[in-house]
């Protein structure tokens, strides 16, 4: 039995109206304005999408990267409940909250990109749904996972509103929800990579491989830990709380372990397929490949010693670099390494970027509001008297 004494989660408190929340509000309004045009005048009115690049950043950033960034909840829950590392328990709720937002928004973001969105329910409807399609698997798993995460997070809401019966009932099913909450993201995070297999030779050999599901899954788990480091440092700075170094330092080691597995898999696959040679050609693809690889490799150097892993600034930078590397892997595989023939090009338009920025603004705003009002972050009992209770 492991019995760790944790501070119970408690609302941070404080004002909701401040520079950060107002900025987020303005960015969200800008995104809504762009979306109003998109839904009345079509995708072409606001995006640079074309038939050579039918998928842009609304798919790659908002959904593929957005959901990978939202793997914190899954990665930490797996560590705590599957690997029985109970000491990380205080990280579960904040990570789950960020995941909940990330995934819910990724699900909503899909609607913006769907050209015939009113039919979206077809994807889960017998008679329409096609199990041969990788996208069907992604859609089914993500939909179910969003539901499961809301249930996993519901104790925080039930506690806030004093609904003891509901809290108890969800608690009884929690072990099953946690099981589902680890298997479902494994399924769709790997499938987000499998999406590209059917693109065949249109995807550059540096990214087209039958190992895509494993590469995307392992990188998503690694990103999950990176996001927790990144968020914990940011939340500590933003709320002037103590950084949970006693948790983050060992978590960084777990992250480096996953990262090493990822790099061995990534390069092993390139070598086995004989594709590593493409990395040494003078192409945009090889340049981007090395940029991606540098971002993945940097944390191994930045955090190589125990002393370095106790340095919050290093944890923050390493986490951010890993998130960047994971983003580059996805942008490279879906866009930079995608070649559908001569004459086509794509770079996101400003309105397109405004929507993506607006989506991330919703996440930040939601995180601030919920952590200030709901019991998510651990109570700071032993902190300075100034800390809000």
């Amino acid at each position, binding site marked *: *039995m*492991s*019995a*760790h004494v944790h501070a119970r989660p408690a609302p941070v408190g404080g004002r909701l109206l401040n520079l950060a929340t107002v900025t987020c509000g303005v960015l969200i309004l800008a995104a809504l304005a762009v979306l109003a045009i*998109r839904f009345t005048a*079509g*995708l072409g009115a606001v*995006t640079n*999408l074309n*038939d050579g690049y*039918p*998928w842009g950043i609304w798919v790659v950033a908002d959904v593929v990267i957005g959901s990978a960034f939202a793997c914190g909840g899954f990665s930490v829950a797996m560590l*705590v*409940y*599957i*690997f*029985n*590392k*109970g000491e990380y328990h205080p990280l579960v709720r904040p990570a789950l909250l960020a995941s909940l937002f990330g995934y819910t928004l990724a699900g909503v973001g899909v609607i913006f990109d*769907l*050209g*015939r*969105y009113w*039919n*979206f329910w*077809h*994807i889960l409807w017998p*008679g*329409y*749904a*096609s199990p*041969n*399609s990788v996208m*069907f*698997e992604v*859609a089914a798993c993500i939909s179910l996972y969003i539901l499961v995460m809301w249930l996993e997070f519901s104790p925080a809401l039930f*506690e806030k509103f004093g609904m003891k019966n509901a*809290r108890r009932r969800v*608690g*009884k099913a*929690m*072990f*099953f929800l*946690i*099981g*589902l909450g680890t*298997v479902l993201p*494994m*399924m769709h995070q*790997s*499938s987000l990579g*499998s*999406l590209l*297999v*059917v*693109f*065949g*030779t249109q995807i550059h050999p540096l990214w087209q491989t*039958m190992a895509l*599901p494993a590469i995307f899954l392992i990188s998503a788990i690694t990103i999950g830990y990176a996001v927790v480091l990144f968020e914990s440092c940011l939340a500590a700075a933003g709320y002037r709380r103590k950084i949970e170094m006693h948790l983050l330092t060992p978590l960084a080691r777990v992250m480096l372990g996953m990262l090493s597995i990822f790099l061995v898999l990534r390069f092993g696959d390139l070598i086995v397929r004989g594709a590593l040679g493409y990395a040494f050609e003078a192409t945009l693809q090889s340049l981007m490949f090395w940029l991606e690889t540098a971002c993945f490799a940097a944390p191994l150097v930045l955090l190589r010693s125990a002393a370095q892993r106790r340095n919050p600034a290093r944890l923050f930078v390493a986490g951010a670099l890993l998130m960047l590397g994971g983003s580059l892997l996805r942008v490279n595989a879906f866009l930079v390494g995608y070649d559908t023939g001569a004459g086509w090009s794509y770079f996101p338009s400003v309105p397109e970027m405004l929507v993506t920025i607006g989506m991330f603004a919703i996440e930040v705003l939601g995180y601030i509001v919920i952590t200030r009002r709901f019991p998510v972050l651990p109570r700071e009992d032993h902190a300075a008297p100034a800390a809000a209770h």
Partner: protein
Amino acid sequence: MTTRRDFLRRAVAGGAAAATCTVSAPAAARGNAGRSPEALGLLFDSTLCIGCKACVTACKAANDLPLDVSTRPESPWDTPVDTTAKTFNVIKVYREGAATHKDAGTDGFAFMKSSCLHCVDPSCVSACPVSAMTKDPVTGIVGYDPNACIGCRYCVAACPFGIPKYDYQSPTGEIGKCELCRHRLPDGKYSACAEVCPTGATLYGKVDDLMAEAKRRLALTPGEITRFPRGNLSTGDQPSWEGAAAAYVQHVYGETEVGGTQMLKLSAVPFDKLGHKPLPDRSFSSKSETLQHTLYGGLALPLVALGAMTWFARRNIGAHEGDEGGEE
């Protein structure tokens, strides 16, 4: 307390499970799909095409498609330069050097039809999550149903020939592509492009017949006089004509590419110069579906994983939730 050994043991078990998921025996492996014996298609012979574009106009009329202005505004007339959501068929011209000799690789010119190839094992159908893209089990025609479509454009991205196109200018945009005039079949009519082709460069028929005709032409000596059928090869509804055989590239494009297509192409200019890249014989959809069904066939692996994860979670949950003081 959990020990490091516990942690490692579970990490190894998890790793093994993940490895099993990704590299387990391809129980659900499938090869390329086979072609229906009744499959319908087209044979396009670039050496017979004179670039009149009667097929482009006929396609517009038969499919009730609007004008598509994609040429520069100063051009003397409007003509689409590529297929779009509103243009399902175009004739593209290849020019090299002085462009004076038809079907010559250097200083030559040639025409190539661009429209759906109706793959035997189509990527778009495999990609489509809502069965909006379907392959007819008898005719093999790849059809599209806008009422089922969610507009995700996975088909647009997946097609190795860049054929399905989306209408980005409409808030309710649809995918557009050649459906081999399947709406004309009940009236006893066939593809409008083949019906109007004056030289038989675009020929309609059963794919088996078209393949035999293509092989017959490849076997001819360049310059040899032969008869070229027109319209519908399988019914012989239009008179044939006599002409000289060209110096064909000895390859039927579409015989093996991505598992074969129901549109076959012949040319005297190398195909890659006409925008037809070499493609592997194995269909991309068979690779993708083999991967998916190996991982998810019968939901066996996910259920095993779920069982294991639930077991661990149930065992470990009490230890961590109890200290929150709440009744779990």
